[in-house]
């Protein structure tokens, strides 16, 4: 076990090194000469020379990489090139990061509160109609792209529906059930947040329900559950104290997974609802050739992901003593 932890700790800096090299090379040199990206093809040689010196682009690439990492560690991620010209990238990102983090924490909470009980219920009533519906709906919820949910759910929840049946002389007006997010961002505690957070949490709900169900079915078949029953413990105690606790362990992986979902989720949801988070910024940067923002964004998210996975790996032996032995 100790050897495993040490190997992980030694390997992590290597991963971080390669991740940063790939990101830097792709972001700064992938699109072609960075100076051309900045000033266009028609700039005069003096401007090009001035920009090269200003941004340190006259130095060899490895030196540029080292400079970049050194200043990135101090929070300086370079400057915007086109749309955010001369604005410090670090500050632009710092302004938007809290919004995205708040949304994702809210989604994680909603997902856990709904998903875990659903999974437990399905696991306990295995092969019942509830279990079948749950399996089908959760697989569907995982597979239906956010791309479709966005227009579809916005249509259902954020507009006024006029149902008119002329033959019956019947008219009913429904909604809008939820307010649309547009224009101003009012912070995480406004009603506008409900729909985006719900869409973000759908993946968590389905994923956690599936994990919880599978975990519970697995632990219910274990010897220690049979022992607990044989001791004459009440069924509720058996399930809550013996089976459920152990079924919760694999859910630690969701912590690591969630950052992956964050990327696609915030890339699509934030621009759609006009939420000024890091996803909206990243999409904007990808399309408008703001490569320093792209590099900074990718670096921050990838490094956070490496640390999160490391944390989950180290958490496992604490949660599950059986892993410590192997």
């Amino acid at each position, binding site marked *: 076990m100790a050897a495993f932890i040490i190997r992980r700790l030694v390997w992590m800096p290597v991963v971080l090194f390669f991740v940063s090299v790939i990101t830097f090379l792709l972001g700064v040199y992938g699109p072609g000469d960075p100076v051309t990206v900045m000033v266009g093809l028609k700039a005069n040689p003096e401007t090009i020379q001035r920009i090269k010196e200003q941004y340190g682009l006259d130095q060899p690439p490895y030196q540029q990489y080292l400079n970049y990492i050194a200043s990135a560690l101090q929070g300086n991620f370079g400057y915007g090139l086109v749309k955010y010209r001369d604005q410090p990238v670090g500050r632009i990102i710092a302004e938007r990061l809290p919004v995205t983090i708040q949304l994702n924490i809210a989604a994680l909470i909603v997902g856990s509160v709904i998903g875990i009980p659903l999974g437990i219920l399905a696991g306990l009533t295995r092969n019942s109609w509830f279990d079948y519906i749950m399996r*089908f709906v959760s697989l569907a919820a995982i*597979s239906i792209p956010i791309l479709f949910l966005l227009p579809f759910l916005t249509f259902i929840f954020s507009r006024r529906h006029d149902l008119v049946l002329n033959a019956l002389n019947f008219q009913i007006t429904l909604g809008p059930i939820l307010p649309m997010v547009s224009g101003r961002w009012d912070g995480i505690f406004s009603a506008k947040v409900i729909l985006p957070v719900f869409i973000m949490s759908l993946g968590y709900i389905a994923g956690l329900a599936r994990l919880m169900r599978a975990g519970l*079915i697995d632990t219910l078949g274990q010897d220690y559950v049979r022992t607990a029953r044989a001791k004459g413990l009440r069924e509720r105690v058996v399930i809550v104290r013996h089976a459920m606790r152990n079924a919760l362990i694999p859910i630690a992986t969701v912590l690591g997974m969630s950052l992956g979902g*964050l*990327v696609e989720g915030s*890339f699509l949801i934030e621009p759609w609802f006009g939420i000024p988070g890091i996803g909206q910024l990243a999409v904007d940067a990808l399309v408008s050739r703001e490569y320093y923002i*792209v590099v900074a964004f*990718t670096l921050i998210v990838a490094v956070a*992901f490496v640390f999160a996975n490391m944390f989950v790996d180290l958490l496992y032996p604490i949660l599950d003593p059986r892993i410590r032995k192997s």
Partner: protein
Amino acid sequence: MAPATTLDAQSQTIAVRSPSPWRRVAGRVARNIPGLVGFIVIIAFFATALAANFLAPYSYDKQDLNQIEKPPSIEHWMGTDSLGRDMLSRLIYGARSSAFVVILVTVVNLTLGIPFGALAGYFGGWVDNLIMRVTEILFAFPGLLLIFLIAATVRPAVLDWARANGLTELARSGYLDYAVVILALGTIGWAGLARFVRGQVLTVGQREYVMSAQATGVQTIRIIARHILPNALAPIIVSISAGMGFIALSEGYLSYLGIGLQPPNPSWGNIMADNAGRYWRTFPQFIWLVAIPGAILSAIVLAFAFFGDALNEALNPELADKF
């Protein structure tokens, strides 16, 4: 002597009656309703892609400025967009774009993933270490982040290169966008398959028939190709089926974000993006322009998911209970 003959006769009757394993799997998939529907949708998807030029009533880029933003009608079953282009034709050609990307990326994944995974699993040692460390670095980027990064940064470079080398026509045609999308998805996709194949090879490699082949001096490549891979095939097929849905979805995301296939080349993702802004302003007047491509993309992704699920249950019945 007598018992031996009965046994022989029995095994013969069994051999005659029991269908081949693949037919049994097909039978089990056919009994799984979501899986069967998924299979039919997948077949329809590839058939539409193949026959796009026969099925589409109009050309995908023919503009009719007298027919702008018309709701679904008899002439235009799915309405027209802001340039008066027939949505049904664009969606049908979108299937072709999607299927093209799905098949080529799968081919790239197979040609890289299976050999690397098999080598890592069979040889172990430093070969295994090297290949697995490379995949770990690729997996250090969460979700589609590295795919987005590659597609966004490589595209301008490829287009500049084409223009500089006198391939202006090619750069303008949009075919290079397909290459960029396939490159971005292929760079990452093989890693997952390689890890999977490696795991399968490790399990199968321990079996007696592999050891006996090694003992009799069969060539290594032959052992991998003839003895190990065929026996690891079933789970690999399941993972490929699941992977195809993911590729279709990723292409949709890339094109939606504006770093995948570019208009006027039709892709379900860029059709949605094209119409999303207008859709918001006049919400919800033109909902079909966004909702229909989204629904089709969802149906394809769901079809691959349910078919993969059914295939998995059919191939490993004992695992069916655990999703």
